[in-house]
């Protein structure tokens, strides 16, 4: 019995102790970063609190926000969240489809398909997104094609991000070594089976983290769609109420907070997804 008791109290091995110390160090770092974020956030709030600071000869009046306006219009701006998310989700779906097709087209040995893929990417990347949104909303009606603001916005965002994301997919596809294709071919897989079963799963795993970044920047670029004047998402609502009552400062700060919150939430999920993908791979 005495022996067991002794074993239970046995000091941890040196490796274990070093490992624990390292874990503590990492935890401490994270705690400190978190606390510093909190302080920075408090400073930000303080700067907009309207307080007056007197430190001897130094006098400083922080920025005064119209809290009555904020409370009254918070709901109105928040209603834009749905539209912003809807546009982003639809656009990302369009973009991913186009990006995959363009990336596969880039692998094609059939000249017309290769040409269509590179032509599309070049044309879209060679023109501003802002112009593309106006093109689908304002220029197409001249040809008798009338798109609603949402459809024009989704088309432009989808086409635009599709062109950029095709490069991400292409990098993913070329990250899969030649040996993988050869092993699949040696087993007797057709090119289609090789792509679907062996190459794409590995390429997607490689491409998901950068795709997450694209999705996050798309939620912010969706603000450009407000320029059509007919899509009532966050940005449109902020500009509308801000201009009407000359409270642009409050309105834009509110919209900014909503976008920031959205990206924080999306970044969190992206991190989770990446951690999951990292397991069991290579």
């Amino acid at each position: 019995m005495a022996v067991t008791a002794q074993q239970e109290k046995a000091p941890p091995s040196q490796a274990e102790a070093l490992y624990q110390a390292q874990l503590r160090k990492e935890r401490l770092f994270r705690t400190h970063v978190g606390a510093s974020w909190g302080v920075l956030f408090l400073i930000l709030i303080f700067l907009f609190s309207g307080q007056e600071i007197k430190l001897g000869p130094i006098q400083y009046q922080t920025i005064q926000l119209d809290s009555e306006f904020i409370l009254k219009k918070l709901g109105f701006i928040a209603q834009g969240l749905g539209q912003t998310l809807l546009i982003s989700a639809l656009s990302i779906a369009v973009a991913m489809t186009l990006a995959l097709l363009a990336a596969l087209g880039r692998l094609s040995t059939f000249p017309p398909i290769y040409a269509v893929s590179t032509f599309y990417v070049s044309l879209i990347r060679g023109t501003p997104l802002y112009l593309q949104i106006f093109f689908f909303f304002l220029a197409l009606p001249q040809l008798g094609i009338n798109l609603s603001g949402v459809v024009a916005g989704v088309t432009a965002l989808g086409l635009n991000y599709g062109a950029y994301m095709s490069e991400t997919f292409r990098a993913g596809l070329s990250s899969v070594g030649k040996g993988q294709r050869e092993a699949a071919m040696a087993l007797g897989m057709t090119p289609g089976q090789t792509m679907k079963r062996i190459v794409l799963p590995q390429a997607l795993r490689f491409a998901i983290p950068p795709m997450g970044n694209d999705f996050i920047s798309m939620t912010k670029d969706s603000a450009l769609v407000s320029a059509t004047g007919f899509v009532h998402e966050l940005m449109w609502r902020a500009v509308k109420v801000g201009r009407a009552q000359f409270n642009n400062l409050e309105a834009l700060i509110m919209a900014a907070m909503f976008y920031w919150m959205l990206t924080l939430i999306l970044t969190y999920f992206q991190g989770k997804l990446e951690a999951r993908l990292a397991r069991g791979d290579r």
Partner: protein
Amino acid sequence: MSLPIVKISNLDKYFGRLHVLKNISLEVPERQVVCLIGRSGSGKSTLLRCVNFLEDPSHGAVEVDGVRVAAEVKGQERRQLIHDVRLKTGMVFQEFNLFPHMSVLENVIEGPVTVKGMDRNRAVELAELNLDSVGMLFKKDEYPMRLSGGQKQRVAIARALTMEPRVMLFDEPTSALDPELIGEVLSVMKKVANEGMTMIVVTHEMGFAREVADRVIVMSEGELIEDAAPDELFSQPKDPRTRALIDRYRTDEK
């Protein structure tokens, strides 16, 4: 002598302007173990890869178990014939080429299920049998990342065997391994040979060639320069280039 199961006739291969295989003809009877040796750049790997059409021969024909693919046959017919040849050959690569996104078991059943349309349960049964015979059943749920090189190569052998091929092709199967891991792979290969599999092995392992091969073929500059039983070839090499090659390995072994 039994019927040839692999028959290569008048095969040429060019890489651009480089003539890497020069009018090669070779027959391998069933159950024979052939080792292909030669300096790097002699064309031995290219010849092996022509057997299952990972490289396309420029001229000539390859026949595996009655399926003949001549270089002149093109289009859909060619694709079908190549597919048939690949079903009859299993290949083991220098770099293992296991699928990193699949577990060991999934790697091994992938071929039978996707290519042959085999029932999954039946494929698992067969896969476990082969994994057991290469001593890797205990790792069946691991991912390749977690295996040593020798273990990866044993899984790769099980993966090829589970397709129930008529011929196994080995392309320098131990060249990417740490020295202490070579033995376990060679002993699995020896076991496969003893079970009566026809094997073509590109290798630098002279010990394996001497002990396991029925026949050793020496290649140099795209040609077969000597073809003999290992005892004969290693004790009385006829071609001076063979002698030089063997001497070089002897010095390496010391």
